[in-house]
């Protein structure tokens, strides 16, 4: 917790009020305790208070029960990551207390449910302990039958008091959450919240007050990455899709299933992953770019049909919410190990587009970009996110929907003649003409997975295979040439350039800030377009002695992660090295810095 005006929390003593810029709160309990709800309320409150916010959660793969955490970082300044160490730990159980005390800053506050947690005397000196019989007091507040239900809201009340949060705004959020249900549910929720709020923490703890946030341009919306993708696709004009449930992709298909019918569209739950992509391709073939998506094994299953979309030059958007792999892997953990399959998965030379959003706001806008690239280049586009960004809640400036929303209804006007695979076009870019379109020449196109001539009819001609293979490649090269050169964060020259992609942008930028604050020469570069890459990266790399590619995947047989290999292959530059990890957790800022230091100290690896 960075204090704006005063020093560290005083131990013991009279309670006082300290001004703070930001705080990291880690809530630890079991998956059915509603701790995501507490975090969600805090995140949305921050969004409504023009504060920056970012969350991080883990959920167990088991259906019910199992340890679960939710970490929320909220502040008046820019919040780039969910925070390395917590200022406050809210522990519901003994295991929550014991497993997560290590993630609390020395001198931080552990707020625990004294009905379940027996604090360790030897730790009392390192952390401020505050025990509240949360379970018992919740039952007291809302009645004996409620059992443990509502203790999350009681705890929310405690936190609200501690940080002097805006109670009317929180009450409004509770009202919205429990709207339409039995009014006694809302009343119980409010009762639990107020009981917590009015509980006296005594004089062992100080309370805190956020300094006023800088005025934002426009109101903020608060959502997680999966929601941002779902709504981005709707804004882009997607009205049809198909999917099969798998964690952590399922939220997106549930959202689309629920929302698309309002727009005259639909989303189909299919019998399997292969049917899902096949049906989505059928939807695209019918005229309007469609969407499918998956995670982990589901992506592997889709690769044959993906290859068809490449060959038949059919627009398609595929969402890959990455999780730990291979095989069933770690379904609820984060990993960036699908870049290889996204770029290369499938047999044959099958160039496709791969883009990766860096934050929740990006998820919204890049979903639209994915649709537009797919349409313009008649190509499948993979939008690569991960478990972290999928469930992470962030606030961002509300998009101007009237301007952002686009109509991509197909055009069925008759055409004189049409060659779906015309070799004479500039850059190899051709467009799909859907069924329903009268073709006046009487020569109709066939969409096909066989190598074909310009009308889509099969050919065994070596010359045509060469020309068509080049056509499918050339259009991606044209896209690459049109991409903007990404901006460097920090000075354009220096000792170390950290390169990242996907959800790691925040912690990498924070690492740059922290390194520069102590005089180290570190900048960073974040790539959103991974296949094709934008041109001009070599000029950026030239400004640094070390180019370290930070990824959440294995260092591979030759010492480089998956993006690291791509950059090495393209730039043949030995100063490109990898910083990789596979613990299934998001990067901590200090981890990145320590690993970068070790790497630089070791000098360039001999290979």
């Amino acid at each position, binding site marked *: 917790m960075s204090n704006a005006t005063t020093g560290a929390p005083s131990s013991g003593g009279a309670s006082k009020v300290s001004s703070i810029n930001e705080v990291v709160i880690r809530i630890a309990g079991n998956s059915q305790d509603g701790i995501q709800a507490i975090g969600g309320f805090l995140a949305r409150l921050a969004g409504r208070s023009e504060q920056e916010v970012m969350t991080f959660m883990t959920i167990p793969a088991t259906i019910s029960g199992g340890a679960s955490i939710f970490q929320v970082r909220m502040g008046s300044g820019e919040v780039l990551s969910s925070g390395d160490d917590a200022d406050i730990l809210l522990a519901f159980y003994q295991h929550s207390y014991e497993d997560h005390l290590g993630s609390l800053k020395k001198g931080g506050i552990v707020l625990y449910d004294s009905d379940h947690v027996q604090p360790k005397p030897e730790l009392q000196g390192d952390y401020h302990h505050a025990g509240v019989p949360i379970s018992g007091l919740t039952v007291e507040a809302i009645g004996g039958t409620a059992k443990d239900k509502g203790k999350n809201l009681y705890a929310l009340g405690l936190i609200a008091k501690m940080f002097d949060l805006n109670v009317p705004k929180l009450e409004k959020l509770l009202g919205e959450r429990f709207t339409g249900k039995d009014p006694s549910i809302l009343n119980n929720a409010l009762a639990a919240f107020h009981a917590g709020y009015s509980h006296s923490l005594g004089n062992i703890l100080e309370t805190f007050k956020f300094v006023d946030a800088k005025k934002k341009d426009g109101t903020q919306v608060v959502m997680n990455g999966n*929601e941002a993708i779902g709504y981005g696709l709707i804004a882009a004009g997607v009205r049809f899709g198909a999917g099969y449930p798998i964690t952590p992709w399922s939220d997106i298909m549930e959202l689309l299933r629920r929302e698309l019918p309002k727009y*005259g*569209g639909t989303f189909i739950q299919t019998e399997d992953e292969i049917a899902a992509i*096949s049906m989505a391709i059928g939807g695209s073939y019918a005229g309007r770019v469609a969407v499918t998506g998956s995670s982990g094994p589901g992506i592997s299953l889709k690769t044959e*049909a993906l290859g068809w979309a490449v060959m038949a030059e059919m627009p398609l958007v595929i969402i890959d919410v990455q999780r730990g792999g291979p095989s069933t892997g770690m379904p609820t953990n984060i990993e960036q190990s699908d870049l290889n399959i996204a770029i290369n998965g499938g047999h044959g030379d099958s160039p496709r587009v791969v883009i990766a959003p860096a934050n929740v706001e990006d998820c919204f806008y890049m979903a639209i970009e994915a649709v537009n690239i797919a349409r313009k280049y008649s190509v499948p586009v993979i939008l690569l996110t991960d478990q972290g960004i999928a469930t992470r809640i962030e606030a961002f400036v509300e998009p101007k929907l009237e301007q952002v929303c686009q109509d991509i209804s197909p055009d069925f006007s008759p055409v004189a003649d049409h060659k779906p695979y015309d070799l004479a076009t500039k850059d190899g870019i051709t467009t799909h003409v859907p069924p329903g379109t009268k073709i006046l020449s009487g020569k109709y196109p066939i969409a096909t997975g066989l190598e074909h001539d310009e009308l889509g009819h099969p050919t065994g001609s070596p010359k045509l295979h060469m020309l068509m293979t080049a056509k499918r490649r050339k259009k991606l090269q044209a896209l690459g040439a049109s991409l903007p050169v990404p901006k460097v964060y920090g000075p354009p020259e220096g000792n170390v350039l950290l390169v990242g992609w996907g959800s790691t942008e925040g912690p990498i930028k924070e690492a740059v800030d922290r390194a520069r604050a102590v005089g180290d020469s570190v900048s960073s570069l974040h790539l959103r377009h991974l296949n094709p890459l934008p041109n001009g990266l070599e000029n950026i790399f030239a400004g640094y002695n070390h180019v370290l590619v930070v990824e959440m995947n294995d260092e591979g047989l030759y010492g480089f992660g998956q993006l690291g290999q791509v950059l090495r292959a393209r730039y043949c530059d030995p100063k490109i090295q990898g910083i990789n990890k596979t613990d299934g957790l998001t990067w901590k800022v200090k981890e990145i810095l320590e690993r970068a230091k070790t790497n630089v100290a070791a000098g360039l690896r001999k290979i």
Partner: protein
Amino acid sequence: MSETLIAKPAVSTTTPPEGERKGLTKKEIAADHPTWCPGCGDFSVLALYFKLIEKRKMLHEKITTIAGIGCSSRFPYFVQAHGAHFIHGRALPFASGISLSRPDLHVFVFGGDGDAFSIGGNHFNHTARKNVKMTYCVMDNWVYGLTKKQTSPTSPLGFKSKTDPWGAVDYPINPMKQAIAAGATFVARTTHTNPNHVLQMMEAAMDHDGFSFIECLSECVEFYEGAFDSSNPRKGGVFNEIPKNHDVTDELAAYKLAGEPFPGHFGIFYKSNKPTKNAKEAEISKSLQSKVTGLKDWQILQKNFDRMK
């Protein structure tokens, strides 16, 4: 509001009404010369598809011919109309994507027994149970032809193939039983040697509002010659139409008919008028759209965003 499920794309104004229109001739609708072996039963199915298009005066641009992989799945290349040659076994979900987003198109899927019952078996069951509107014609030859004589899921016990040189040991699938059990709402059987009957089944299938399935015996003269002789009067066999008194809505009676030994009966085994997936999805959409009447798409989305502030 965008027009996807509910509204049909506008029909070209230059199109004369059906009464004054001439059907497409074979010359207009034929494309590549088929790659099938001389004498293959599939030629007859293709010719009858052309006849169906002509007789029913289908609009050229509305015909959509879809297939997976196999000898018979080459079909779309031979039809001068919009079409797609998709991957092995997955023609049905691909066609479902078209059918569910484009109610104005005639969606016809052609394929073989391997495509339908082996690699695509799962999709067959689910497309049937969901009752997605389309016509699926399986040209069943009881053998893998394109890969040159391996055992197929419909090969009878004892059939000698390259993968079962001692004779097939796996019990074959009965396509009629499979379709009825899966919930298909139109289940018919015909054979390429009786062109009138094939056309009759195709017309009935096309008119059916739902998933209409036709098993059309189609002899592979190269790898399973004579397989269907006992169903062909010209080869000394018998072609028995389904008895006039058979009740096509009686699932049990249909299942019993399907269990008869070869050559069995030909005709419509089963037919029911369950609402289609297409209709159900449109109903859901209509009901949800009624709550946002008069709003533009961005305004509907704005309502969601207002709740996330």
